[in-house]
């Protein structure tokens, strides 16, 4: 770092997304020209412009490069096991229905090892936002073939080129029941942010795929230059086609990438279906799990857990009831 930079009074120069990040964990681990940081920035902007209570936003990631996102966001954040971000988020959302739960993870995590959870959460129309950063490759482990790797692209485990057919993720999401489906690249900052804002305001299983460059592995193994070259490629080859038939959204190697919003519809969420069904079946006997969570509270005056003072416990109850007033 230069001396000039050190002299700048940093407290006056806070980055606009700093309040959304764990600045005590910066610098992050992502490579130069990686696209993930851009997607994080767009998500933070979308949160800011959505004017929602950040105390009620939780983020869940799996494993991999994008799996590190939860670790950098200043939200209630969970960095879980490989592929299991969606079922973890399922428990989080159903355990405390008032939360806005975002799953932020990569292609290998969400539709490779976690593919079964992805399709079932979409089928149930679980009320979560799923942001999938697709870099066409397993980055963290060194460039192995992914379920999204375009046919003929080289990866470290397909050294002669990939002969498998990749997923068309918007089609997969829509056919399983997602209510909001969009795809952008990390070049489309403004449109991506708008898409995140829209998705945050919707209900149900919302899915945004973001194509992002992996310069260190995907670009290097395929001799595509740097992240900058990939961004230029997106600029020249991304086609915006809102409402396109998701069956036509396959991505071929170094071919055009169709972007846009493809699905935006209403369908009752898992919780709405459950509540309506139980109300019909059980009438007044149905008691839904409270919006602020199913924690059973101490109504007695004397808490019994070790070392807990009654005065403090009452303070806790007071703050809890404040949050539930909302």
């Amino acid at each position, binding site marked *: 770092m230069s001396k000039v930079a050190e002299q700048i009074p940093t407290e006056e120069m806070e980055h606009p997304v700093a309040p959304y990040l*764990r600045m*005590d*964990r910066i610098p992050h681990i992502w490579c130069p020209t990686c696209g993930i940081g851009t997607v994080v920035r767009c998500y933070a902007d979308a949160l800011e412009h959505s004017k929602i209570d950040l*105390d*009620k936003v*939780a983020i869940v990631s799996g494993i991999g490069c994008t799996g590190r996102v*939860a*670790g950098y966001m200043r*939200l*209630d*954040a*969970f*960095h*879980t*096991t490989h*592929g*299991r971000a*969606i*079922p*973890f*988020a*399922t*428990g*989080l*959302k*159903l*355990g*405390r229905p*008032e*939360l806005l739960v975002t799953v932020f993870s990569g292609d290998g995590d969400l539709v490779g090892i976690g593919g*079964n*959870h992805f399709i*079932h959460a979409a089928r149930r129309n679980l009320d979560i936002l799923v942001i999938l950063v697709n870099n066409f490759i397993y980055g963290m482990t060194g460039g192995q073939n992914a379920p999204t790797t375009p046919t003929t692209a080289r990866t470290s485990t397909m050294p002669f080129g990939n002969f498998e057919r990749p997923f068309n993720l918007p089609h997969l999401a829509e056919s399983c029941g997602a209510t909001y489906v969009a795809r952008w690249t990390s070049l489309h900052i403004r449109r991506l942010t708008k898409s995140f804002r829209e998705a945050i305001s919707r209900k149900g299983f919302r899915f945004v795929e973001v194509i992002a460059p992996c310069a260190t592995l995907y670009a290097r193994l395929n001799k595509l230059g740097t992240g900058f070259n990939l961004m230029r490629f997106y600029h020249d080859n991304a086609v915006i086609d809102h409402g396109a038939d998701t069956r036509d959204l396959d991505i071929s190697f170094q071919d055009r990438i169709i972007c846009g919003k493809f699905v935006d519809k209403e369908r009752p969420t898992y919780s709405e279906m459950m509540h309506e069904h*139980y109300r019909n079946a*059980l009438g007044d*006997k*149905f*008691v839904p*799990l*409270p919006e*602020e*969570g*199913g*924690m*059973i*509270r*101490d*109504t*007695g005056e004397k*808490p*019994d*857990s*070790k070392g*807990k003072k009654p005065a*403090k*416990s009452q*303070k*806790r109850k007071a*703050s809890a009831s404040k*949050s539930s007033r909302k």
Partner: protein
Amino acid sequence: MKTDPSGVLTGQHYLDGDHACGEGAMAAGCRFVAGYPITPSTEVVERISRRFPMMGGTFIQMEDEMASMAAIIGASWTGTKSMTVTSGPGFSLMMENIGLAAMMETPCVIVNVQRGGPSTGLPTNVGQADMMQARWGSHGDYEIIALSPQSPQEAFDVMIDAFNLSEIYRVPVMVMTDECVGHMTEKVVIPKAEDIEIVPRKLTDKPPGEFWPYVADRNMIPEFARAGDGYRFHSTGLTHNERGYPVMSAECQQECVTRLVDKIRLNAEDIVRFEEEDIDGADVVLVTYGITARVARRGIDIARNKGVKVGVIRLIVVWPFPERHIRELAPKIKAFVVPEINYGQIVLEVERCAAGQTLTVLVPHMGGTVHDPEDIANAILEAAK
């Protein structure tokens, strides 16, 4: 604190162990269950799915056991007491996220209605061969707590203990029941709600900004913050520091893993629980647990009628193991006899703790049915010679 009465079906019932287990969970305040059907455990969630909508509980049938286990961890982070239920093959699938629950220090309960294994094994018949898997089935070093009931009544009772222990120590707690107890129907007495003591989640009193999720207290247990209470904390399955931030160093690994293990090992004397019978002056002591403790009664009677002084230690908490107790008893007796429906699991612990001071005899049974009491009696008579 006293439990929420809405989950307590007070009265005398005629229930099988699986249903009693479900009732125990609801009485303990469990309000989130995720599960996947598997014999012989399914009746637990069938019971719960019928009763939950009337008490503010949510049951979800997930797509597999990996998802079930992940979902209960997520739900537990909202402060909601959470549980999943399975049997052998599903237990294997849960192992990865059991490790996550241990690493994130998430209170939760896993019920394993054991059947014969390995692999698909004997889906509808009894086994006790998952005892070692319960302890260390996930990779890495960690400790859990496991209980084993011998009857439907005890299946109810240990569920309350399981939830309470999971809250006190912030660990996944396993209830290692078996097909026989699960499908055995007996009288079960469910007490009044005001007679059921439950441990609430130990929420932090600190304001947001001063709270870090893995700062441990004197008992090595951190305070808890729920997702959605404004703490904006971070929790990870990676090796982490007190802030819950990943730190990839040997020093942090040392600190993190040592505490995860020691919070159980060093508190083991407070956790272990067993019943003793006729230990003083015994020649042979039977160490037993679960359904085998019931079957062994007949074997003990036969041996006693032939003049052998037989004592019994019946483990209710199996993990952590009552090491000190076995070690101190060993030099005073001729032998430990350990019948179990496997080819030798808990017997290894008995043998280790006996440390060569006395004979340790396994009475194995590969499962499918319980022991023939004669086999247990013969082992006792042989050991008493």
